[in-house]
């Protein structure tokens, strides 16, 4: 049986768009949440620091797949609400990204010397103004390059949404495989498409890194996905 693979191109392209959208959303929510956690980690109060530490350590020690299972199957049972696969996947991706991003943001904030805080405070800036006008612009240089790595990890993790039935890129590939001869050409195509997307992002990240002359792609803990 010969299959006209090109006929599937529009479907695959749309699916790639869905994957990008899902990952981007997860990453965005994760980055915002991660920043909050990072601020807690640097808080004056020990209890907040401890809570933030437990939060990051927890999500770093639990596979994202079982988090996704829980969000999709468990939360509706517990709370009695309906949750779509998309919401479940986004929440799980965001939770995982937030723990990694909190470490990235913390490193970024800490890279700004103590003297900057003191100078800003001496000039009469409030803590929020200090953060907004002095610390953040400097920290962003350190935060951006590893964030690219986190995004790539999130994008790879988004493939797990296929397991809870969300039709993104991987699921689309599997469905095409089922509807054709069951060979592994669709799977190879999936690998190539993911690779191209991620490699392009990683090249962009490299350019970013060179522009900022600092930082490193962060993919140590839980980066395999």
């Amino acid at each position: 049986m010969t299959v006209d693979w090109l006929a599937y191109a529009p479907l695959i392209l749309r699916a790639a768009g869905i994957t990008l959208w899902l990952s981007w959303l997860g990453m965005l929510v994760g980055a915002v949440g991660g920043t909050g956690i990072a601020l807690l980690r640097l808080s004056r109060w020990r209890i907040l620091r401890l809570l933030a530490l437990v939060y990051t350590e927890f999500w770093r020690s639990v596979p994202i797949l079982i988090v996704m299972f829980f969000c999709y199957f468990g939360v509706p049972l517990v709370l009695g609400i309906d949750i779509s696969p998309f919401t479940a996947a986004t929440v799980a991706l965001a939770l995982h990204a937030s723990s990694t991003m909190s470490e990235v943001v913390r490193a970024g904030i800490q890279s700004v010397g103590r003297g900057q805080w003191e100078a800003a405070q001496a000039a009469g800036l409030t803590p929020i103004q200090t953060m907004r006008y002095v610390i953040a612009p400097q920290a962003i240089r350190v935060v951006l390059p590893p964030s690219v790595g986190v995004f790539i990890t999130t994008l790879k993790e988004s493939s797990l949404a296929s397991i809870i039935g969300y039709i993104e890129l991987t699921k689309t590939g599997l469905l095409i495989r089922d509807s054709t001869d069951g060979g592994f050409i669709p799977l190879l195509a999936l690998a190539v498409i993911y690779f191209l997307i991620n490699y392009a992002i990683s090249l962009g990240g490299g350019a970013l890194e060179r522009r900022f002359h600092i930082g490193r792609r962060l993919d140590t803990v839980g980066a395999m996905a």
Partner: protein
Amino acid sequence: MGYTFTLRTIYPYLGTLWQAAGLTLALSLLAIVISIVLGAGIAILRRSHSRLLRFIGAAYVEVMRNTPLLVILYIVYFAGPSIGIRLSSFNAALIGLSLNSAGYMAEILRAGLIAVAPGQFEAAHAQGLTALQTFRYVVFPQVFRTIYAPLGNQVIAVILASSLASAIAVDEVASWMETVGSTSFRFFETFVVAAIVYLVLCQAVNLGRLGIGRMLFRQGAVAR
């Protein structure tokens, strides 16, 4: 709210949990060992004199770092029958996990090798150490120190990633959670139990790493 958290409901399933945890552990440990060996090979390729071999090594690493593990697992699992090889779920998961982890291991080992200053090889050669002695007494202890922490992270990453084996029907812990959850409708409890298994495994690696590290590397023994 109508949901009460009762661990008692999943007592009957704890027997299979031990089997599942055993599979998770076996899969992870084997994948770690295999990927260290594979990764070492790739790290050596990346230091080869031949441009082609260096390219192959670099390409391998990039492909593995930029392709989702799930897709790699599907390829290994489904490609076998297409070309006439039948792989069991466990073997397919082991191969996929090892191939993927090897890409990361290669980078860790490469960084370790780079961290050994060229002067170290010269000093050892000048003292008359053979290639093997140089590796055993001078290079390996220094590489080990550099890769120790990232290696621990990678071990944890492999344990977590082994959960994806459930997608190709390996009955490990994530799969246990899904099956038991959907038969008993106690997803909250199964999630908590599965999370605890992973937490215990990962934190055991973390604590073991700290303890062994303290024993092995006395203060001040940091590479300059």
